[in-house]
């Protein structure tokens, strides 16, 4: 399952690279997130619009409320197609692995 999710994420990078007309993806496929429930969901959803280094960069100073606000902004403002259940899992993962 873990391997599958990485493959899916890497396919996503590739497709985005093509659609973005060669926008730099640089070394982003080398980014590794911490293990934990929800990691696969983060890797397949968040990566649609941005590289995963945004997560570690914004750590470890956000508490659960802070991560919840960030995930909410991505869904409500930026239009990330993430269901409320998925959002909950993502917030759990981010606040336990990258929270304060």
């Amino acid at each position, binding site marked *: 399952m873990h391997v599958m999710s990485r493959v899916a994420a890497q396919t996503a990078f590739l497709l*985005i690279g093509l*659609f*973005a*007309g*060669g*926008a*730099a*993806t*640089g*070394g*982003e496929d080398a*980014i590794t997130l911490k293990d934990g429930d929800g990691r696969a969901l983060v890797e397949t959803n968040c990566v*649609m*619009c*941005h*590289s995963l*280094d*945004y*997560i*570690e*960069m*914004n*750590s*470890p*100073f*956000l508490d659960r409320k*802070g991560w919840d*606000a*960030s995930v909410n902004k991505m869904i409500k*403002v*930026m*239009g*990330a*197609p993430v269901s409320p259940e998925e959002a909950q899992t993502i917030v759990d993962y981010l606040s336990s692995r*990258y929270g304060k």
Partner: protein
Amino acid sequence: MLSRRRLLLATAGLWAGGARARPDVGPAALPEGTLSSSTYDTLPGKLPLIKKSFRPPNFETPARVLGEAFTPNEAFFVRYHLSSIPEVDPAAWRLAVGGEAAAGTLSLSLDVLRREFTPVEIAAVCQCSGNRRGLSNPHVPGVQWGHGAMGNARWRGVRLKEVLERAGVKSGAVEVAFDGTDSGVVDKTPDFVKSIPAWKALDENTLLAYEMNGEPLPHWHGAPLRLVVPGWTATYWIKHLARIEVLAQPLTGFWMNPAYRIPKGRFPIVDRFVSQENETTTPITEMVVNSLITNLRDRMLYRSRTPLFVRGIAWDGGYGIARVDVSTDGGRTWGTAELGEDFGRFSTRQWSFAFVPEPGDHVVMARATNRLGASQSFELVFNPAGYHNNVVHSVNIRCT
């Protein structure tokens, strides 16, 4: 000679034993995760810069490079909100000008802009509103910039005013809006469209630039044409311009509100954006006066009892730098720095200050004052987006 020797000394190692193997990716006050995830990486056509995020690309200029009078294009910081950044074919590209409060419409090629309008060049600082956000205390979410989300360049192009006047500006014009070709990946992501007040659009210093430091505008800096709003933060300097609209009503949308807002009345700002103000917040406008020590690195060893030069830059929202004061004892006493060549009121101003350090630890600080008498703060004026951080830069050095 001296500065070369300093450079050699400066590479000798950190005073804490030189154990830090990582390259300098920014001040120690940045979030732990920012320091661990930052690397030096290279976008096509650029030098290795401090990578904050790969996609969209957010890359920071190392502070030592900012000490130069003009930041080389290859080392200039890169900031994007959205990940789809098409390369524009300059021959096929057209700029559309129109809008409800424009008398007519225009479709301008690059060739027409170059041939039919007066070329103008201005030296101006381009600084991200969130420069130094990573130094906010407490930390706030966003791109965790250190000191280098800024650069100084010579921007050449035409006056926006001249283009708008060719289209015709009606008396009801309130704001002028700008849209570039970059966009989000998901359809629902709000397009990055920004407006400035009509009076600012008609200011003779507001440019549509097609050259940067004497070269055609590079891709990462907005090829083929970008807006240049000297004195104002880079959120308004829209890249890859495709469409300009003269508006009869204030622009709405996420990027105007709630994004890029500062609390009202907390900063000493002259230029206001009245049509966008509400009871508590106002859009960020001009830059606050600021300075940076560029040649000394925190926690480095330097030689005592021989002159040591402190060098750096100062800048503001376009009033011009009047003076820079330097302290080498943590702010107890101050001396006046010598200012470098004046490239105009919108440019950074280089400065230098020499002192002969005694052996021991020294806290070196720089504080700029502009021609309005505004100066930098010692305490952070906290705001939720981490804007306008002009806290006096301070570097700890050890002299042996």
